[in-house]
């Protein structure tokens, strides 16, 4: 806008410019309305009822209880158990399992022959594309006492056991690895393809062994993808519900009850929506924290 022009003209121009930006921004409106009503709305509502004693039924009016729900949570054995199991589940299945196995698959694929690569990629991706509930049933069958894993262990003359009963958190962690590794594999395949061949070949000719090449060349060159992948895996793993629900319902007892299942149980089986939502809010804050770190990582990358 020109400064020499009269104020009246300037404001008319300003209004015209504002009008033009509004017209241009108009197509964003439907998306914005949906996001505000159905995503921002529930998040704000979540922040509100986490501080009330709202119940599922038989209550005239909920009342504001301050930080009671949170105080209660941190004194609740079951909540602390759920936090611990969520931690175990996330570290085992996402940070260690999906991440390492995805990198292993991707780097083996770099060297393998094409038909093997296609076949293996197809199998791993199929596990990823399958609906969550179907994956749950498949791994339930795999880990059951009468299931395939025990059949395999018997065949190898190794001791078998009732996995879903003795080590349910391990079983659901493996299930999450089975289902989620393809994503890491795809991210790492894309990253490894970007490393110039000359660099690895030069290192190979210089006699650097596989592990040293991995540690000194490959990992530093794909470190941004590692960061992105770890964050996205963690976020996905934090919100796993259906897989565990189908396999164990969080049981036996509460031996595989991660935070989402705990939240569900408190809100619906114990009818304490307020308390369940307080747990949900904590989960949401944890997710936001990971999400902010992820954005930071992306910003350095772009």
């Amino acid at each position, binding site marked *: 806008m020109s400064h020499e022009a009269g104020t009246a003209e300037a404001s008319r121009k300003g209004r015209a410019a504002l009008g033009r930006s509004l017209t241009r921004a108009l197509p*964003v409106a*439907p998306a914005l309305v949906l996001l505000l009503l159905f995503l921002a709305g*529930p998040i704000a509502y979540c922040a509100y009822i986490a501080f009330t004693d709202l119940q599922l039924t038989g209550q005239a009016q909920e009342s504001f209880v301050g930080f009671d729900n949170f105080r209660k949570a941190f004194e609740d054995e079951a909540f602390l158990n759920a936090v611990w199991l969520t931690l175990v589940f996330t570290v085992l299945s996402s940070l260690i399992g999906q991440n390492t196995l995805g990198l292993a698959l991707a780097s083996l694929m770099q060297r*393998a022959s094409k038909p093997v690569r296609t076949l293996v990629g197809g199998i791993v991706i199929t596990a990823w594309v399958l*609906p969550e509930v179907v994956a749950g*049933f498949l791994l339930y069958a795999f880990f059951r006492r009468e299931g395939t894993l025990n059949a395999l262990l018997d065949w190898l003359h190794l001791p078998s056991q009732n996995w879903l009963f003795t080590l349910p958190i391990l079983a659901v962690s493996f299930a999450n690895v089975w289902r989620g590794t393809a994503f890491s594999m795809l*991210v790492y395949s894309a990253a490894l393809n970007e490393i110039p061949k000359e660099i690895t070949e030069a290192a190979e000719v210089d006699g650097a062994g596989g592990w040293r090449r991995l540690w000194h060349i490959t990992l530093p060159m794909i470190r941004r993808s590692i960061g992105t992948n770890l964050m996205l895996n963690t*976020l996905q793993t934090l*919100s796993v519900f259906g897989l565990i629900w189908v396999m164990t319902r969080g049981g036996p007892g509460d031996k595989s009850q991660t935070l989402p299942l705990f939240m569900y149980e408190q809100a619906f089986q114990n009818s304490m929506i307020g308390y369940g*939502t307080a747990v949900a809010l904590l989960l949401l804050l944890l997710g936001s924290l990971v999400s902010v770190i992820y954005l930071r990582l992306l910003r350095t990358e772009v």
Partner: protein
Amino acid sequence: MPHTPGSRRTLSNRRTAHRLAADFGLLTLAAAFALPLAWVILSSLDPNADLRVKVPDSLTFSNFDAVLTPGITFTPLLNSLILCGGGTLLTVVCAALAAYPLSRFRSRLNRPFLLTVLFATSLPITAIMVPVYALFVQVNLIDTMQGTIFFFAASQLPFAIWLMKNFMDGVPKELEEAAWTDGASSSQSLLRIVLPLMGPGVAVVTVFCFVMMWGNFFVPFMLLLTPDQMPAAVSINEFFGNRGMVVYGQLAAFSVIYSSPVLVLYVLVARRLGGGFALGGAVKG
């Protein structure tokens, strides 16, 4: 030391050895991934299926016959189709509209908006389902298809906008400017020029949204109550998970039927884009 005079030949020998080792390693890993998949396929054709992977003594389609009834298969699949089709349509239309100004016009608001969208893509949706339930009870959207569709669309929108905007950035602006000088409006150039040119991108967004919704269990599980409205993701659990006696062959057959649409869609899109790597790259941002 490895580099002796004959090191060229040893190097190429070593490469072949490496490739064989890599093939072997991959196939071993893939076998572990394949076992549960083998169970579902073999059991669906086995008249006496149990929980183990085994080759059936005889092949039968009776499991499929038994589940191909309106109550078990057709109604839940139709519900899934309405929910996911409606949700995907709404998501893709809104995302394409929103991506256009974000990709084409410069504004101070673009960056904060996109950052918020990116932030929202990674929020754990599971965490807000309890408040969404409470909210839907208040506004009478609980147990309605449209409410569930709206929520599905809102939950997929951030990622859809992000993907769509990135694909749209790939369409050169010059092509559009030519249309503008010919007097085309923004909406015309979006419909006639930009969207057709980014067809594969739109296909990726559509398939991605549809696959995510088709497999989602928690959202319909929370927001729908009437059994007649349940999509396959929830009904499979009701039919098989809650019964004392489970007919594993039928469960496997239903799983195959329910999973095949998303597998087919994925293969179609992956083939057009040269492997699943495009999605991996797109997610990387």
